[in-house]
Every structure is written in structure tokens, then in C-alpha cells.
């Protein structure tokens, strides 16, 4: 795990002292709160469409997420618990979702 190099977008709630991670790089069992959603895909291409689609699915600042399942090959796709629902997506599409991890949620804590 590492601190994210991209600065958190202005105007987003920032969580003091929390480790942030992109959802695309999160590990199973990690959970936290979404602090930023931006228009970034795996190719690094900004995609307004993906951005809006993520938002419409409920990937929005303040929502709770937990990575609950991952696929066999390349740990892809992933399934996350997003507030009250479960959503499956590919890691590449999850790049734009920035999470502040809960301080007690160590990787694989759910084992």
C-alpha cells in the first residue's frame, strides 16, 4: 500500500491522516470511504462517460466500499460492497475511484 501521488481533487472531503488507495489497486478485505471519483480509465484516458456511469451506479463521494471478491486471473474483475448493494466491475474501470481506507481495515482482515 502506498500514499497516492495524485492530489485529492479540490472541494472533496479529505480524511485526515487516512491512507488513500485507488479502488483499482485495492486488495480483498480493504474497506473505506470514497473520497473522490474522477474520469480516468485504465488507459489513462479521461472518459466522461465512465465518470458519469460510476456516479450513477453509486460510486460517489461519501459512499462506503469494501472489496469483497476478486477473480482468479490477475485478481480481476472485482466485486465490491457499495453501501447497500454489491457491484462487480473491472479493475481498469475502477481507477478513478479514490478511497480513504478505514484505519482498522488491514488487507485480508476479512479472512
Amino acid at each position, binding site marked *: 500500500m502506498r500514499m497516492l501521488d495524485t492530489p485529492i481533487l479540490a472541494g472533496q472531503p479529505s480524511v485526515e491522516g487516512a491512507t488513500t488507495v485507488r479502488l483499482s489497486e485495492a486488495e480483498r478485505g480493504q474497506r473505506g470511504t470514497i473520497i473522490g471519483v474522477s*474520469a480516468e*480509465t485504465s*488507459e489513462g*484516458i479521461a*472518459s*466522461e*462517460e*465512465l*465518470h*458519469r*456511469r*460510476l*456516479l*450513477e*451506479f*453509486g460510486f*460517489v*463521494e*461519501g459512499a462506503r466500499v469494501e472489496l*469483497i*471478491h*476478486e*477473480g*482468479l*486471473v*490477475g*485478481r*480481476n*474483475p472485482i*466485486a465490491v460492497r457499495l*453501501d*447497500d*448493494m*454489491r*457491484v*462487480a*466491475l*473491472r479493475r*481498469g*474501470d475502477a481507477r478513478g475511484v479514490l478511497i480513504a481506507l478505514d484505519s482498522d481495515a488491514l488487507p485480508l482482515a476479512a479472512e
Partner: protein
Amino acid sequence: MSTAFAAATRVALVGNPNSGKTALFNALTGSRQKVANYAGVTVERKEGHLTTPEGRTISVLDLPGTYSLRARSPDEMVTRDAVLGRLAGETPPDVVVCVADATNLRLVLRLILELKQVGRPLVLALNMFDIAQRQGLRIDIEGLSREIGAPIVTTVATRKRGIEELVAKVDELARSGVLNGPQTWREPDAGEIRSAHREAQRIMKAHVLPPERPDTWTAKIDSVLLHPVWGLVILTAIMFVMFQAVFTWATPVADLIDAGFAWLATTVGQILPPGLLTDLLTNGIISGVGSVLVFLPQILILFFFIIMLEDTGYMARAAFLLDRIMGGAGLHGRAFIPLLSSVACAIPGIMSTRVIDNKRDRLTTILVAPLMTCSARIPVYTLIIGAFIPHVKVWGLFNLPGLVMFGLYAAGIVSALVVAFVIRTFFWRGLVEPFLMELPAYKTPDPANIARNLWQRANIFLNRAGRIILPLMVLVWFLSTFPYPPAGATGPAIDYSFAGMIGHFIQPIFAPIGFSWQMTVALIPGMAAREVAVAALGTVYAVGGEADPGALSATLAHQWSLASGLAFLAWYIFAPQCAATLGVVKRETNSWKWPAIMFGYMVALAYLAAFVTYQVAHALGG
């Protein structure tokens, strides 16, 4: 149409996918549209009617589910256009009923905020209220209703609870002539979606308390079924059991039906005086149609499995587990469900590709969908397997015919993936589209729903037998009986008939792949529907006097070489022989180009596969 003064009130059911719109539609109108536990079941608009206790007519529109009116895929566009009244000659609905899964309100609240901008009176149906109550979810209905400015009715669509109240509310709104507001909806941008979410969040906080007994089963089941390794093992096992079952469980019943038709043909032959009519009845109709009806039990078993997978909520999990393979072949993540539906029949499979937004992704899926083994191939496969594959146990556990059946299904799946890969690698290279999919909570399947679905399936199958197979069999019988052989002819009479002539004429084309003229003849009516080929074989051999009625597979074992039999199987993995499928592809793509391409590539593959199979098997002494 009626020219009543007051036209029927028009109501549209709108809501997130899988919230129970179609279940509610069925409960309201008495229809039998497909209901299943995954997102994207409904892909077209369906209209139905109901009469209020006061005798007024309400027309109800069932629509595809959506998270937003900002539609992307063809199914979502249907919903957007219906709600906004953008279709030619249509106005927006008089009342919009938003159907919400009461246990999952967050996203639908945002959709409601969008729907409010459409300017039509709105009713919120809090569906799945049984589950909400079981979980001890506390919703302040009055407060919520005030907040969203719309009446709320709680419903349990599958138990038909709350239906009268819903109708009463809709009727009341329609009659009170609530002034329609202006239509102010336009596509929200990211900022607007965010602020709508904040508003929805605030409403949630104020009026909905989290459940006292949340569903913990789904998480427990998923920890096994979505396990990276065990999940795949279980998925393979389920598929395996399914195809073994199709082959083994059905045998006793199928044998019974078989014996029944044999008895019928013999009895009719004895009771009626010999003559043309008797011949038509026994050889044409009973042999032909009977040879297809025998497969009813198998088809029902296959559908039983599919319905179970659909109703429990497993479909979305299977899509999750196989996403990597699908993606590797260049298929869109949402292509999984259309392809799996094609195991029943390619037609609904092709229709359900409407959930895919990118045109090329969608076309690729449409082009490969008919390669999935549809239920109409079951009669062909079973017949040939029964004739040529011995009934032995393999490793003391599986029976060989079942294994071959599994292999044929696997061949269909693999070839679909390979063709998709070729299309995406050489013709349409492109970026992979984003793919998000909700994993629904598991539900216990409703036995009544399963029974209803199976009954519907049996009906469709019997209907096809009556409307397509029967008339075609009369035709095949006619062609194989007339003209009579000339006086003093030595060969079998059928050789001199039209069917014999046609068969002998085109047989040279099929000689390299080992097809006899009878097989060639069977391919032609098989264009109407694949299983007709089996019926045609039944009739051709019966008229030719080379069969006892009801024992077609024994006849084939006699008449065909093993190599020919295997080549016939290989042909049918790819054979594009289904006029209805080509018709749907034309309709969905709006041009004859795609059905033509599909037909062309499938014939080429079928011929190639049969050729290789025949030559190899022949060389090995088959």
C-alpha cells in the same frame, strides 16, 4: 380502435433493473412476461391492460430497467423515449409509476429526482416489501412521500399484494387531473449527478433506518460461489451436471413417449385400411412429429436448470466468474447473459444483447450467439448420439453419451469465443467498454414461477411441433411419396420421388463430408427449425420403408457409417439452420447484411468442421 371520449389512462413502470417491474406488470395485467433475478431481463416495451373496479381501462407499459434517464444502451433508450414521449405519435405517459426495491433505495431516489423533472404525476411503488419487513427495515413512508412529493404504495409483486392500492392511487391521480408540470429534464452532467446523490442521501438519512436483521445469507453464499478457485470449480460442476442430466434423466420418459408413438403408428396402421391417408398419418405425421416430441422431457430438464440459475441470482455470479474469459475473447462483459440465454434459444439471446451499448460489441455478440448450443439442437444431438455412441460408463461415474453431449456444448462455447476473438482481433479492434453489474441478493426460487415457466416452455415446444413441424412433415411426406416409381422399377420407391430426386441431385456437394442423400434432404426443411431435420429423417426413412416407427436411431445406426454420423454432429454445431434467428438478426440490426454474413460464415464453418470430422473418422476406419 375504440373512439371512447376518455382514452385509457397510460401508465409507465420505470425503475432500477431487477426491482420487480415485470413482476408488478404481470400482477397488474395478468401477463406472463419473463421475470428473473438479474439485471437486464426486460429489453423491450410491453403493453398490457387492466380494468379498475369502476370499469375504467388503464394501459400499463413495462419498460427495461435503468439507473438514469441518460440512456446509453438500446434498452435504456427504450425507457427514456417512452418516459419522455419521444416516440413518433406518442405522448408521455399520464402517470409514471416508479418501482423501487424497498431494500435498495439509494439509487432509485436519485432516479426519482430525475423522473420528477419529466413533469408527470408520479407514484412510488415500494416493492419487495416482504423482504424489507423480514429484514426489519424501517421506512417512514409518510415522511418519504412528503419529501418526494408523490404518493407511496407498498407492494409485493410476486404475491400480488398492494396491487389494488396501487391501481387506486394511479386512478385517483389520473382522474384528479393533477396539472402536469413542464418537462424540464435534460441529461445531467457529473456535477448534477453528484448533487442529486447528496439530496438522495439526505432523504435516506431522514426517512430510512438501516435494517435490524440485514441479509447475511448472500455474503455467506458468495464467499463460496465467488471464491476465485472454488467458484470456478462449482460453475463447471453445475454445467456438467446440467448436460448430463439433460441426457440421462430424460431417458425413461422419452422412452415412454417413443413407445407411445410406435404403438400409435402401428394401431393406426391396423385400424385404417391401407392407402394414402394411412400412409400420410403413420409415416408422415406420426413418425415425423413423434420423432421430435420425444425430446420434450430433455428440453424441460434443460429449462428447469436455466430457470433455477436465473431465479436464484446465480446468473450474475457466473458472469462475474467468466468475465476474464469473455474479455479475453474481446467480448463485452454484458455479453455473458445473452450468450447463456442462447442455450435456450438464440432468439431471446440476440434480443437481450440490447443491454450492450457499444454497437460493435453488440454486433459481435449477435454474430456468435447462434454458435451456443440452443435447445433445438438437442433432438439432433440426442438422436445421433443415441445411434452411434455406446451407453457405457466412463470412470464408473459418467455415461459416455452424456460426456459427448457436454463436449458438443463445450464445442459450441469454444467456437463462439474463438469467432468473437477473430472478429475483435482482425476486424473490429477497439477499446474495451466499461462494465458495471449489480450482483443481486440471492432469492429462493418461487415454485409457482418455475412451474409456470416450464409450462410455458412446453407449450412453445408443442406449438412449434404443431405449427412448423407438422405442416412441413406433410410436405416432406408428399415429396418423398410422389411421383410413384415407373412400372418395372427395381430400386426403392422413394428413389423416384421428388425428395429422392432433389436429394440425389444435391448430394454430390455433400459427398465430401459424408452425407447420404437422405441426410441432404433432411437439411432443407431443417432450415425452418433445426429439430425439423430429425422429423424429416424420421419421415424419409419411414416412407422409404427402412424403419420401424419410433426407432429412428436404430435405423440410423444401420444406415449411416459412424463417420457420417459424427460429421452430421459436427455440421450441427455450426449449422445456421434457423430462419427465425436470421429474421431476428435482420430486425435487430436493421439490415440484411448481418444475417447474410452470419449465414455465410456459419455454413463455411459447418462444412469445414463436417469435412474434417468425416475425413478423419473415415481414415481411422469409421
